[in-house]
């Protein structure tokens, strides 16, 4: 454990965004599982996805990195644009997913008059 201590300090001091990533990921997953409210479950899903985006963006951060528009004969450190592009694409996918989820929730609310899973289950049991 003595060997790991400097590593842990380094992670907390310089790479805290990875810690945030793990926390937000777990929070989102917990929200999906634990909340009986369908809208909150979708918010949890968004948190979960955002955590994954945060992982990609943090991994792409380079100290003193420059934007990847590279003039001829340039030297220096340039940032790989790929993770940002991936996150942009994934955000679009996530937005589409949220839209479908909310549309489904509107239909569920129309039919059952509730957003709570347990209430919907009761209505279904009465059928």
């Amino acid at each position, binding site marked *: 454990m003595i060997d790991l201590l400097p590593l842990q300090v380094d992670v907390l001091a310089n790479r805290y965004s990875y810690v945030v990533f793990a926390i937000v990921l777990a929070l989102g997953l917990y929200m999906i599982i634990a909340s009986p409210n369908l809208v909150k479950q979708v918010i949890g899903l968004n948190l979960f996805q955002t955590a994954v985006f945060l992982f990609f963006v943090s991994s792409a951060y380079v100290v003193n990195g420059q934007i990847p528009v590279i003039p001829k004969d340039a030297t220096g450190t340039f940032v790989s644009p790929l993770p940002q592009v991936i996150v942009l694409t*994934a955000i679009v996918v996530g937005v589409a997913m949220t839209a*479908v989820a909310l549309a489904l929730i509107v239909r569920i609310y129309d039919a059952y008059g509730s957003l709570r899973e347990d209430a919907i289950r009761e209505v279904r049991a009465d*059928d």
Partner: protein
Amino acid sequence: MTDLATLPALLVVLPILAAALPIAATIINRRVGWSVAALALAVEAGLTAWLASGVYADGQRIVHRLGGTELARPDGGYAVGIELVADPLSTLVAGTIATVSLVVLAYARQAGPRGNGFYAGYLLLTGGLMGVVLTGDLFNLFVFLEITGIATYALVATGDRPQAAVAALKYLLIGTVGASMYLLGVGYLYVRTGTLNMVDLARVLAGTATWGEGTWLAEAGALYAEPLVIASVAFITAGLGVKAALFPLHVWQPDAYQEAPDTVTIYISALVSTAAAYALLRIFLIVFTPAFFAETPVAANAFLVFSVTSVVAGSLLAAAQRNVKRLFAYSSVAHFGLILTAVGVAVHPAAGPTATRFAIYGAVIHLVAHAIMKAGLFAAAGSFAAGVGARTVASYAGLARVRPVIAGSIAVLGFGLVGVPPVIGFLGKWYIALGAISAGLWPVIAVVLASTLLSLLYVARILEKLYFDRAETPEVDQKDHPATDPTDSAVAADGGRTALPSLGMVALVAGAALLAVASGFAGAEVTTAIDPLVEAVLAGSPEVGTNA
């Protein structure tokens, strides 16, 4: 070869572009959706056949580089940009998708749902599936998985009852968590290797990359034992396991299959989980390769336990079901477990070249066989529901006398699920069992053989009701289907069995049964078609087939 090389892109783009047409055409004509979809999918099937003729001519590997060939693989051979790959493996599955899409569309003409929006979703789903199968890039695979997902959620929600929306939302929540886990796994791999292309990834992981001189890559060696790589395997397996509905990640699937309209159930049961299982098969065999599992035998054993559990649990749950669609849904859990058991055997360190060869044959054959058999069985269940209003096993009593063709097809396809020769289901199970035996994995052999008996548990229940239950009037179970379902109550009101299933429905069901039997005799042809994959895996090469 330039013509053939554009085909993979066309196969993905055509259905997605065509998906916009039915919605746009709604302004002019509300009934045009089916014709647009039929035209697009007929062209799609033609293009797939053309591509297949090129790929199988001499086991070629046809690569389409998106964004042109100038930037692709500039020096030393790493890929810049996304590649679409048609090789003997992906073309086989693409052919299955094209065929099933076209045939299920014929079924949809009578069975509905009929809105133009449905056909837009249907075409979008086809495009997404083609993308999943043809892409050679892990992140691109994620995007296509999500396109497939969105289209599937929307299609499931087109069911009449509000429960369909609940089932679709459940599917969406679980499916998106699965897809995000897959993305996280891909992210771990990308962070460690710096590439997303499947072929390049395989080379970097194996330490045989020919580029990156003077960088970390040159002295990295094989990365198989890295914690990030092992974690990424776990995330990718969990993510795709959700999409393929492996026990215990299957909970979305029975509800979705039961609540979706019959046409949608046929389509998604045949193809959506198949695409996910295909992706897992491809990533395990081509990207991680048996060499990874030789380095980390725990991963191979854990994966086998995971998939074998799915076989047993899926079969037992299926045997306990009353609703026929739910029963077949749980049967899918068992059969995808079997397919991935075969993948697990193929990559297992205990498997020699012969075992790997047989297990790969078994996995690929059973993947395609399951798609054919499940499409036929769900179509049969759909025609019984539409014709006689029978949706539960109990209400199938004596139906063999009323609908001999459909009942006969259920018998043939059911025997296929059990694994009775000469139906194709036998061929897949035979090779999987042979693979497990050559690898000497005795617990797996026991489960593969027991899976035959377990399938018999639920297939025999249906057949017994159909053929040997002499109930005079099949009792239509009203409890599962209250009067909210208009077709059901109408049929029940005028004494049942008046509505005849359309010719298209019967043709699809009987056609699936005939195809399942006929392809059971085509074992040699199919194994020849898969041979390039086997050779590539055995040689540790990430490229299936010879480069065009």
